């Protein structure tokens, strides 16, 4: 591969790989910005991946080529509802938020696998037939250098992910809702004295994280694996968690971090067709993405500040 070829390969695959992570990590941003730890992202993705595939398989004849898109919505809805469990436990029942997130992870997988068994009487689903197509963007694709990198072989889901990231940034940093969200996560008592309903804000935030995590999962299952089984979502949620922290709890940061992961991942694969690099043992390429990430957080990112009140249940009158 020539340098340019490598670039034309790296950029689109990185963005593609990142899409589910972006959405899920931004879900995490919403939840944690409101003060609720969400390590249940993995479980939310599982629910999304599962519902997305089941919907796609079931309604493909009804909705045709729109199926995957509608499946995203349905998956988001399902995971949003599922996340209410976490919200109730973490916010209303004052559960340790990490515990309840772990429970979400366990429960998500268990419920999804059990349902697959009930629905299809087997351990994993069939392959879906209708997927997201990829396309070139007319005119833009002809721009030299940038065209082939950004506007060829584009996935609608990648556009969605980037759009959601920008939208999330606007919501979190520009709207009253976002201001309140962040206030609730930093200093809930202050927000309370300003007449903001802390509990409500946190519920909304957790549900948003459910919806986005669900969509993320459904993107993964519908663009990458094509079916759902026990291994479909395998640590993606934790990678999203890492992206959220890496991105300093900022939607655009999460976007960047997820794309960085994708970039590192693709780089390790591209390495196989770059002279010299292809001669080093495969294991070094396999661990490359993770090592790069550690170097990146250690070297360039430094200290990241979690929202101050994250992890603490809000109890009126407590100091």
């Amino acid at each position: 591969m020539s340098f340019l070829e490598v670039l034309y390969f790296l950029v689109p695959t990185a963005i593609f790989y990142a899409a589910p992570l972006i959405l899920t990590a931004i879900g995490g941003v919403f939840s944690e910005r409101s003060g609720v730890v969400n390590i249940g992202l993995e479980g939310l993705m599982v629910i999304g991946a599962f519902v997305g595939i089941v919907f796609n398989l079931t309604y493909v004849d009804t909705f045709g080529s729109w199926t995957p898109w509608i499946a995203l919505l349905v998956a988001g809805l399902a995971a949003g509802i599922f996340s209410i469990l976490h919200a109730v436990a973490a916010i209303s029942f004052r559960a340790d938020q990490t515990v309840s997130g772990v429970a979400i992870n366990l429960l998500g997988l268990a419920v999804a696998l059990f349902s697959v068994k009930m629905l299809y009487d087997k351990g994993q689903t069939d392959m879906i037939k209708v997927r997201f197509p990829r396309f070139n963007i007319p005119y833009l694709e002809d721009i030299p250098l940038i065209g082939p990198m950004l506007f060829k072989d584009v996935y609608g889901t990648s556009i969605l992910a980037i759009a959601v990231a920008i939208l999330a940034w606007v919501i979190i940093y520009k709207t009253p809702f976002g201001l309140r969200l962040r206030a609730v996560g930093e200093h809930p008592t202050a927000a309370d004295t300003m007449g903001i309903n802390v509990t409500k804000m946190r519920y909304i935030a957790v549900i948003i994280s459910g919806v986005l995590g669900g969509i993320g999962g459904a993107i993964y299952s519908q663009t990458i694996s094509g079916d759902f089984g026990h291994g479909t979502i395998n640590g993606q949620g934790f990678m999203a968690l890492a992206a959220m922290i890496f991105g300093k709890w900022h939607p655009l940061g999460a976007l960047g971090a997820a794309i960085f992961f994708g970039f590192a991942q693709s780089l390790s694969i591209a390495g196989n067709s770059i002279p010299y690099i292809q001669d080093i043992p495969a294991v070094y390429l396999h661990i490359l993405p993770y090592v790069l990430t550690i170097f990146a957080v250690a070297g360039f990112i430094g200290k990241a500040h979690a929202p101050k009140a994250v992890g603490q249940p809000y109890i009126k009158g407590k100091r």
Partner: protein
Amino acid sequence: MEYVIEMLGIRKQFGSFVANDNITLQLKKGEIHALLGENGAGKSTLMNVLFGLYQPEAGEIRVNGKKVKISDPNVANDLGIGMVHQHFMLVENFTVTENIILGSEPTKKGIVNIKDAAKKVKALSEKYGLNVDPYAKIEDISVGMQQRVEIIKTLYRGAENIIFDEPTASLTPQEISELIQIMKRLIAEGKSIILITHKLQEIMEVSDRVTVIRKGQGIGTVTTSETTPNQLAELMVGRQVEFKTKKAKANPKEEILKVENLVVTDYRNIEKVKGLNLSIRSGEIVGIAGIDGNGQTELIEAITGLRKVKSGTVSLNNKNITNLKPRDITESGVGHIPQDRHKHGLVLDFPIGHNIALQTYYQSPIATAGVIDYSKISELAQKIMKEYDVRSGHGEVTPARALSGGNQQKAIIGREVDRNPDLLIAALPTRGLDVGAIEFIHQRLIEQRDKGKAVLLISFELDEVMNVSDRIAVIYDGQIIDTVNPNETTEQELGLLMAGQDRKSNNGQVKEGDE
């Protein structure tokens, strides 16, 4: 005269503990009404009830004569009640404007209209002379400005009646006099104020009437002009209180601490201590007077090893301790009562007993061969808690968090003094405490002095510095610009010095302490 706010027979319980018991408070229009009581008397609780944060178990609240139910702060806002909380309710990484508009944000097409809001903030701040920068981040501004932000928050929501819960506890004297001006301006605008403070001179200076509560019970309301600080203190504590701490003349001996040409930078690498010299001898209390931010924090942290010294030396008993590890410095004989008891003084989630052992847990007799004998910790804690009158719910096993500020502070002082250090550094040791507790702590500092120890007192309160110290070193811009004898100076003179005015240019005479 009609009342704008009436709280009648208020009762508030936390579990089985009664924090407010049948308390009545009536606020007249246009008055400054002081609310006075010891730490934990129930002042904040009462105000939180008025602000809708707590629901009372009994009693009623009337606003402009009409009975109301204040179910949450929104209702209070709508009724024109605003509150400046004891612990600031500010989101640290938000800007001033963002904090002010939070909860009632002006928008344009769904987007927060920060520009408009900032203009409004600016206007309000100019109208009342509050001087805030709408775009500054809270974490970057001084406590005084944070306080003003809190005030604008209430004004922004159109508050007519404003509660100030201990607004002056963490302010410098300059900031306090500014605040008093502001309150007077608010009154002039027709607003009414409830003011909580432990500082009786403030009450005397600004308030019209005073309501006193003791241990959750209402004691009564008096007109300020018809009372004296001594009477107020007695009403609130239930006994006579000494204001001017009694002490014998100092008898300083050999030099304990010697700081020479000290240069220290802060966390942003900006020089904060710039070639400072200071010497403290055994048997004397040296007070550092100065406006916050003139290098006090960096000085203490440098002496105690918490911050690296850039140049210069610190020696203790003629031994160079510059840049030693904090523990080595502690062991050479330094005790430190930190400025922020929650952040630096205590592990709030530990029992108070563990906190009392926080400097000695690793030493004999508590620890042998790395193993801690927890019964020894209990013994030590019980002893110190008895000696220093530390009151807690369940003895030494009570979480430190559950102690009142005064008791937390007494525990810290007990911990530090009990080790019998040659040098005791006390930074703002009485911040936020009631007169009774202050008296107790001052006595302890003097006791140390009388035992032949050196005491370094840092305080922003001039009367505390003047009362307790044997010598006052004035810090300005990272240097000790002068040392004065408290008996031979006035608050005015100190104030000028602290503002960086050289005394030489005033009266052409240099004094070297009481030498």
